């Protein structure tokens, strides 16, 4: 048998329980070929299940050993790894749960899986410098309207069912998780000093952050926020920006030339 055919049969034996590879395998002095081939069959499933358990520890806590084991089994049978790095194997798990009738109604579990995936993504997102708040000190009032920001590559905003962050936190502390709410919450994920972090973000902060991540100028963000709320929101918008600096979300800032819009300058 040619090497390519043998490898195809071997892989089918591991993934699909195809027995045809056993014709090429010898019994050992101590046991039969099926027992020996099962080492590879079992190791494949154990290893992928371990990857999932490592990447979704709180989902495992929420579901319990048995249900998480069933989920892992379903995922492994339907989803081969196509990456050299095991890090990415579980990336599709939340989407898989959404697609499968037995899991798609468990929104709390799906949102928790999405939450843990976001933490993993923040953990090893690309590196970038963090801009210090003090770097804004010499920025004159005439320049504030033209400020734009580049964010750290780990920064992400995601929407969840209300209470997902609290469920995650309770499970992480080995406490009984609260029930999910019917409303929505938006969670901000990022990394600072090597640690993935998260916090809820209010509706107006999310709006400001999404605009800022699209490189909208400070004045444009203020105009949009004012349009939404009908109030003078400059101080609140400036507060968001100072908080983003404090959190370590901003990698760089710059002053984009253009028509000046009057905004009041915050104390830095």
């Amino acid at each position: 048998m040619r090497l390519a055919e043998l490898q195809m049969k071997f892989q089918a034996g591991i993934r699909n329980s195809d027995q045809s590879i056993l014709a090429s395998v010898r019994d050992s002095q101590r046991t039969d070929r099926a027992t020996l081939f099962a080492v590879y069959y079992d190791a494949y499933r154990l290893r992928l299940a371990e990857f999932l358990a490592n990447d979704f520890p709180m989902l495992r806590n929420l579901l319990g050993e048995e249900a998480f084991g069933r989920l892992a089994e379903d995922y492994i049978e339907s989803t081969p790894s196509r990456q050299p790095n095991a890090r990415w194997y579980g990336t599709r798990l939340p989407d898989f749960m959404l697609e499968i009738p037995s899991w798609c109604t468990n929104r709390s579990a799906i949102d928790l899986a999405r939450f843990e995936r976001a933490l993993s993504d923040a953990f090893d997102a690309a590196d970038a410098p963090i801009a210090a708040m003090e770097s804004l000190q010499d920025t004159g009032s005439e320049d504030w309207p033209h400020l734009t920001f580049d964010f750290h590559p780990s920064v992400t905003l995601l929407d969840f069912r209300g209470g997902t962050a609290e469920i995650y936190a309770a499970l992480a502390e080995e406490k009984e998780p609260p029930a999910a709410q019917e409303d929505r919450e938006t969670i901000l994920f990022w990394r600072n000093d090597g640690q993935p972090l998260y916090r809820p973000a209010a509706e107006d902060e999310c709006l400001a952050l999404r605009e800022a991540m699209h490189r909208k100028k400070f004045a444009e963000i203020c105009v949009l926020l004012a349009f939404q709320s009908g109030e003078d929101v400059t101080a609140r918008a400036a507060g968001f920006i100072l908080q983003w600096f404090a959190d370590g979300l901003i990698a760089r800032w710059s002053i984009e030339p253009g028509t000046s819009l009057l905004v009041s300058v915050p104390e830095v």
Partner: protein
Amino acid sequence: MAQPSSLGMGLGLRPVYYPDILDKTPSVDWFEVISENFMVPGGRPIAMLERIRTSYPIVMHGVSMSIASTAPLDFTYLGALKGLADRFQPEWISDHLCWTGVHGVNLHDLLPIPYTSEALDHVVDRIMRVQDFLGRRIAIENVSSYITFAESEMDEWTFVREVAERADCWLLLDVNNVFVSSFNHGFDPARYIEAIPKDRVVQFHLAGHSEAGTHKIDTHDQPVCEEVWSLYSEICHHFGPVSTLIERDANFPPFGELMAELDRARTVAAAARLANQEAAA
């Protein structure tokens, strides 16, 4: 290209030991890193490796080159490997004499190959292409195996020797894998050792395995067993000083236990060196 001289005694770098390594700067001569663990955009893994690299030599050890696969070589993977090597300047790069999948699938296991002339030609060609791409020799490691193929035309050790000579690559001799495979397939490990060309071996691995009654499984979750220590002693007598690594991937003990294993490896290697010197005098 001259055979690299021994780096001494090293440990596999695993995240669970980062605090021990960074806080205590232990007397480990070098670290082996799993290449794929650092093929990520950024974050803590890269930052940790940068810090550790300032104090220790490293070698890069991969698990996904799939050098014996009949699937096309993955040049995206190899490009990332080359980039990592350019950044961290390892003493050498190694991977396994195995395949990990075909048809775009990665089974994340070190799968066995039949020892045929077809497989030999195939593996030799691919190692040479990889070495051309990376611009350096790579080291190829023997794996533990649980089955033998009816198609095999030669012994594993003959295959390994031919691969090294024809591809002009280095060898990473895993002592535990020789022991596990010798038990599983019923061969004398001494025959294996005798067949391996001394001038190709740049590194030894020492690790633990699990017992399954009728066979042994290479799990890296146990201390190095007495039989493997004994085989390591014979290997040190045969090969002389070669960089040696304690490999642990699960059931992690306190760092001190790995250091104790490393000290034992030092003692075994030193005793073999002394005995060889006395024999030569």
